Every structure is written in structure tokens, then in C-alpha cells.
């Protein structure tokens, strides 16, 4: 899998199609694993999607005492293995982004697995497939880098100013897709 997930938060229109689609993925038991949040509905309708960062050295897996969180050869961090997960919820606290969800009825963790049953065939995950605003994309690494440079380029051409009513500034910058 040479492709990456590319998020452009300010494009999010809050439709939650990504969440509806997440439920549609084969192994997802009709439960969504991604999040869409308002930044501050009092101020603006700006929303942003959040999903697993598929960390290189995932805290969730590291803090799991039962070794239930497997990492595929492509680097996808999977949901806890049913037979191993002891329901301690360490992963939900360990993850710096608050991603893993906990199923209290089944007493086990579940999380975004980048639609592994699709992406292992290089087919786009459900959320990125349907996102009507291209806020979530599943693209080549090179294309992602080009898009990042494009941003700066457009800002230079236009004389960098956020357009009216934009609340881009609210978006936490440590997600790293911003050149400004």
C-alpha cells in the first residue's frame, strides 16, 4: 500500500457521510470508527473529521498489556483481536488522539483499520471514497506532497489571506497539513 490518507480539515462540510460509510465497511459490524466534530457551533458550522493516524509506533498497541492490537505488514493498526482483548481500555487512554472506541457490551475495543479489507487491495477506504468535499482523500504519497506545496503556491499567488468567514485558524496545526 503506497497510498496515504490525506485530510484537509477546512474542506469538511459536516455531512458525516464518512461515518455512514464507515459503518458499511465489511468487518465494521455497522459501527463507525471515525469522528466528525464541530469546532464551535456557536461560532461557525466548521467541522472536521478525525480518524486513526495509523501511527508508526502506535501508543495504543504499546500500552496494550494483552498484545491484542496487531499491525499489518503495510503498517495498518488493526482493531483489538477479539480473543486477546481483555477490555482494560488502556488503548483508549493511551492514544494521543482519542481514537479507539470501546464496546461496553462486548467488552472490547474497536477502531479505524483504514478499511483494511479494501485498502489491502489498494481500493480506497469507505470514508475517503464517499467524502463529497474531498476533505478525506486516499492518494499517492507523491500526490500528497504536491498538494501540500500547492497550498503555499496558491497563498503566494493570492497574497495569503484567509477568505471571509473562514475559520481555518481554529484548526490545530500539529496535524501538519498546513503550510501557513
Amino acid at each position: 500500500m503506497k497510498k496515504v490518507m490525506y485530510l484537509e480539515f477546512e474542506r469538511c462540510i459536516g455531512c458525516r457521510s464518512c461515518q455512514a460509510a464507515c459503518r458499511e465497511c465489511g468487518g465494521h459490524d455497522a459501527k463507525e470508527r471515525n469522528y466528525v466534530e464541530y469546532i464551535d457551533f456557536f461560532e461557525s458550522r466548521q467541522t472536521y473529521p478525525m480518524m486513526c493516524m495509523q501511527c508508526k509506533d502506535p501508543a495504543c498497541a504499546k500500552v496494550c498489556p494483552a498484545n491484542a492490537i496487531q499491525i499489518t505488514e503495510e503498517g495498518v493498526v488493526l482493531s483489538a483481536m477479539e480473543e486477546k482483548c481483555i477490555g482494560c481500555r488502556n488503548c483508549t487512554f493511551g492514544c494521543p488522539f482519542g481514537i479507539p472506541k470501546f464496546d461496553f457490551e462486548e467488552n472490547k475495543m474497536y477502531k479505524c483499520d483504514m478499511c483494511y479489507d479494501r485498502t489491502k487491495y489498494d481500493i480506497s477506504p469507505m470514508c475517503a471514497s464517499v467524502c463529497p468535499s474531498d476533505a478525506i482523500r486516499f492518494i499517492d504519497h507523491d500526490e500528497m506532497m504536491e498538494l501540500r506545496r500547492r497550498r503555499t503556491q496558491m497563498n503566494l499567488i493570492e497574497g495569503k489571506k484567509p477568505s471571509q468567514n473562514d475559520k481555518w485558524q481554529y484548526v490545530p496545526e500539529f496535524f501538519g497539513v498546513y503550510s501557513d
Partner: protein
Amino acid sequence: MTEFVTKPGVKNLQHPGEKLITTHCCYCGMQCGMHIRLNEKTGKVVGVEPRYDWPVTLGKMCPKGVTAYQTIDHPERITKPLIKKNGEFVESTWDEALDLIEKNFKSLQGKHGKDAVSVFGGVSMTNEKCYLVGKYARVALGTRFVDYNGRFCMSSAAGGFMKTLGIDRGSTLPWPELEHTDCFFMAGTNTAECHPTTIQWLWKARDKGAKMIVADPRETPTARIADVHLDLKAGTDSALANGMMHLIIKEGYVDEEYVNERCNNYEELKASVEKFTPEYTSEITGVSIEKLVKAAHIYGKSPRSVMMFARGVEQQAKGVDNVTLYTSMALLRGQIGKFASGVATFTGQGNGQGGREHGQKADALPGYRKIDNPEHVKYVSSVWGIDPSEMPKAGVSAYEMFDEIQAGNIRAMHVICSNPAVSAPNNNYIWDSFNKLDFMVVSDFFLSETAEFADVVLPASSWAEDEGTTTNLEGRVIRIRKVKDPIGESKTDWEILKLIAERMGKGSFFNYNNPRDIFEEFRVASKGGKADYSGITYERIEKEDGIFWPCPSEDHPGTPTMFQESFGTPDGKANLAAVEWQEPDENPSNEFPHILTTGRVVFHYLSGSQTRRTDFLMEQCPEPYAEMHPHLASKYALQDGDNVYLETKRGSMTVKVKLTKAIREDHVFIPYHWGKELSVNKLTNPALDPTSRMPEFKVCAVKLKKV
């Protein structure tokens, strides 16, 4: 015909034991492409797979589209005819139900004349069915009273386009060209929530530097991403458009050559916008002068622009005027009939475009023909095999049908694919009218609020249980494929119409065995009309990714871009609009001090009959709410989540308050997808546009009280 249509090199996930069937979403006019997953063993629909290679939507879907399949095998589907006995619905056989319909239709028509029975249609169904509804009313029932829910949706756009351009095709350009547009002027359209899959095209253009101007009283998710948000007062569109044209003329942005060659009325327009200085426009619309000037410069300077609008400007008592004025803005800039530029309305219903062209409208016949034109009547009569003298005269518009019920002229109604008990304005009047009917039949696949009033409910098929064509918001005719057989004893709408026609002794005119038979007849019926489908075949649609009408012959490529050479008016020239600004029918007063406006949310579709039965969508948005600015709320000591009582001259309701600064301080917004006590249409104003007979859903005066 192939069930699964895909282009070489496109990968889809094929689950073992399942097959994929290619079709389009059942909801809005985007008609997003999708594949439905069918379990081959159980025959049940199990999910959806993106159709990455559908050129209009590229696999994208909104949450309604993703979950659309869940309504097909839904546990609440009506699977048998229902007859109301002692106020309760009882399951019955088709024969019993048809007997009852035959008996009542015949006796009421015998006593009160043919027009005593009426038909209320809808456009969330295929062209084949929409075409048949018109024929069913005129030939099988012989009534002049037929109209459809497009009067609550598209009719002002249609009326406005007819006036200015001579042909009503929702978009003058194909959607994929939007990528190359330099400026989008979007009025009264919350595209991000109502036609979300368009947004990808806007971003593609904006990545290249395109600008976006949005006129809306709310800072919707669409307005939020605009370069200029013209936060106008609801109902002041004609002033805004006149003000923009004033500036376009003053600043020398008019394409004089285009206007001289291709348009009438330029001098009149100039005179009528003369007084709309930014100061005057700002005073009426409430938009700051600075924003008006900025928008005019951006729009005026853009080499390629598209003027886009939707229900916000159309659902007004001056809806047609608004459409003609905004269209004139595009004409002044010489934009219509060219690459990546033009004018477009966002068709609300799945087949809002196709459904309004083929004779479901009180005054229309197939192919956009007119019932008051003897030549048109003669032609359509010849296709139908009736004598022109048998063709009923024009009826009245959807809302006016309820006046006819109240007056005792309409005694029975057959409602097909529509839910006016929720979607019509002034609900209390509508409900009272239904109760006054002697006999009411509803064809639907869920027991809608309207169906609850019926004497007989006929179980219709869902969109995935029949095949046919629809026409999307671009004017592209596309294929809906059959995924599975109708559930239980339900039947397709065309079979139902055929069965009733047989009972009325008109079976020989409805001799169809499948939708294709109807399509073939309707190709002939539309031939030579403005919306000419005669060159379109199911095979061509599949091969050519849909075909744009007009398409007058099988070797004609179809018409993606309209009006390249001339317009559809008798002299081939567009008619610029010289229209005065007029205030809305109802304005804030001491008693009703605020403006109420209504609209959609992304999670629901129209009257909500389907989306309110879909778990994911209901989890996101279970009930209506009154959205208002904290400044307005604080005048009534209302806090987020408090209950507020709202009242207009026509009705009242209580809902929760949702506070946001992303709305004008003087407006309250309530979404309209709920019925009964949760229906905001109890409050809305039925003042009709004089041409399109479109009610003024978008503006009325309201008072608030904390409860």
C-alpha cells in the same frame, strides 16, 4: 443489458456471494452513481459500493446516499394493500382494494363529473412513471385535476427559465465543466447540505483560484467557504440581483457584444436597475455596501462564471422574478451557452427535471408541451390514441387543488409518490382538506403522514425494485436499474396505474408489459417537443454515461451545453428581466416581529418519510429545531436547548432552540422534514407566485415565546 457497469481499470470490492448492480441514488437531483450490493443467496440488499467512474459524482455520496439501500428491505415497508375500516387500516387483497377504488371513482365521477377525481403526483420516480401519471389522469380518469409536488420544488426555476431562455433545462452546462469555472455566484442554495457531491467540483475549481460568492441569510456550510457571503434578508433576492446588475453595468462589466446580439430588453433592464445603488440595495437586503461592491467586482471580472440558485430564491411569491433576474446577471456577462459557464438550478428531487417535462403538471403534456396549445394536444392525443376533444383542459396547481377540495369540486384524490401532509405549506388547511375528501387513495412504500389520511393505501415498489430512467440536475438522462423484485405483494407504480386504468375501462391505452414499453411510447410522445427524448435509448445511456436532452434522433449526440447558437424563445434571443423589487407577502410586524425561514438538513430528504426511517440519519438529526442567533435568543431569555413556542398567522409549534452566530440576528430557521406536531409547514405561508404557483416557504413573519 449489463447489471454491473464499470470502466476498465476501476477497482471495486466484490464480496464473495454478492453481486453488484449499478444504479443511482433515489434522493436528490445529483443522482449520485452507486452500486448496490445484493446477497445472491438470500436475495436481500446488503449494502452499497461507490461508483468511482460515474463522471458526475466520482463515487462520492452524502449520508443519505450511503444509507439509501436500507429503505429497500425495511421492516416498515407496506407489503399488502390497506383498506381503512372503522378508522383502522386492515390488510386486504389487491382485488378488494381495486374493487373499492373502482366503485368510488366511478360513483363520484358519475355524480359530480370526471373532474371530481384528482391526481397528485411526485417526481421522486422515473420518467416512465412520471409520464404515465399524466396519461393516467387524462386518459384513464379523464380529469383535468392533475398536478405534482414539483410545485413545491422546481416550478419557479422552470417558470423563470422559460421566460428568459425559452427552455427550462436545469443546468445549461454539464457538471464536470465546473472544474474550469472561475467564479460561482450561488444564491439561496445550501449546496453543502442539499447537493453535497457538487462540492468536490467547487473545490477542484477553487484549487485553481476560482472564487465563490454565496447569498444566504445563514452562514451555511456553503456560505462558510465563500469568498464573499452576502447575508441578505430572506425574500430580498430581487433587490440583490438588481443591485448586482446596477454595479455590473456601472463598472463596465457587461459583455455588450453578447447582449446586443443575443438578448432583448437591455434598455429596459438598464432603466430598472438604475436606482439600485449599493446604498439602496444595502438598505433593502441588509447586506453591507462593502460586500456588495466586492461581490460585483469578483463576479464581473471573472472570465467564466456560473450563476447557481436553488429553493432559497425560488420558494418565494416572487420566485420566478428572482430566477429571471439572476439569469439576467449571467446574460449580462455573456456567460450562457459557453464552456464552463452558464446558469444552473439545483434540482431538489431525484427526477425533478425529468418529472416536470412529461405532463404531470396541470398545464403540461409530454416533451414540455402545453395543454392550451391545440397543436400540442393534437400530437399527444395521436400518440395516446384518443380524440383531441377528449383531452381535459388545464387543471390547477398543487396547492390550489386543496382549494378545489374545500370548494367541493374535487371529491377524491389519488396521491402518488408524494407526502403533501408534510411538504405542502399551511398544513392545517391541507389536513382539513384531506378529511373533507369523500375518497382518498395513496400509493407509497411507507405509511407516510399523507397515507394515514387515505381510505386505501396501495403498496408501491421502492426505487430499487423497478427499472427506468431519470434526468439528473444537469439534464442528463440516466438509467435506474432493477436490483430485486418488489417486496411482498407490492407493485410498481406503473403496474398500479395500469390496473386502475383497466378498472376504469381504459386498459387498452395502458398496454405495457415493462418500463421499456412505456419509455418507447414516451420517446415518441416527447418527439418534436422542447424536451425531446426521442433519440435516447437504454443502450445509449449505458454506453455514453447518460445522454443530455434535447436528443432528437438516435444519431444525435445529445446536448450537454445549451443555447450555444440561440435561445429557445420564438426569436432565438434571451429576454433580460426588468423587474421591480417587491417585498415578501408577509413582513415582520409588531405582533409577528421576526422572519421565519425553512430548509433542509443534510441528513434528511424532503418530507422525511424515508430518511426518518433510517437509523444512521435519525441518530444524527432526530427532530427539528429552531436555529437562531444568541442575540435574538437573549431577548426572550432563551438558552441553547430550551423549548421555544413559535406562532404565525396559520399555525404554531414548539421545538428546541439551537444557538449559533452563523445566522442573521433577525431570522429563525427550522428544517421541514417532520410531520404532524413537528411540521414547520403548519406555520409557512401559502402565498403563491403568480406564474409558477410556488408557495412562499422561505419567508413568513413569526412570534416567539419561551415555554
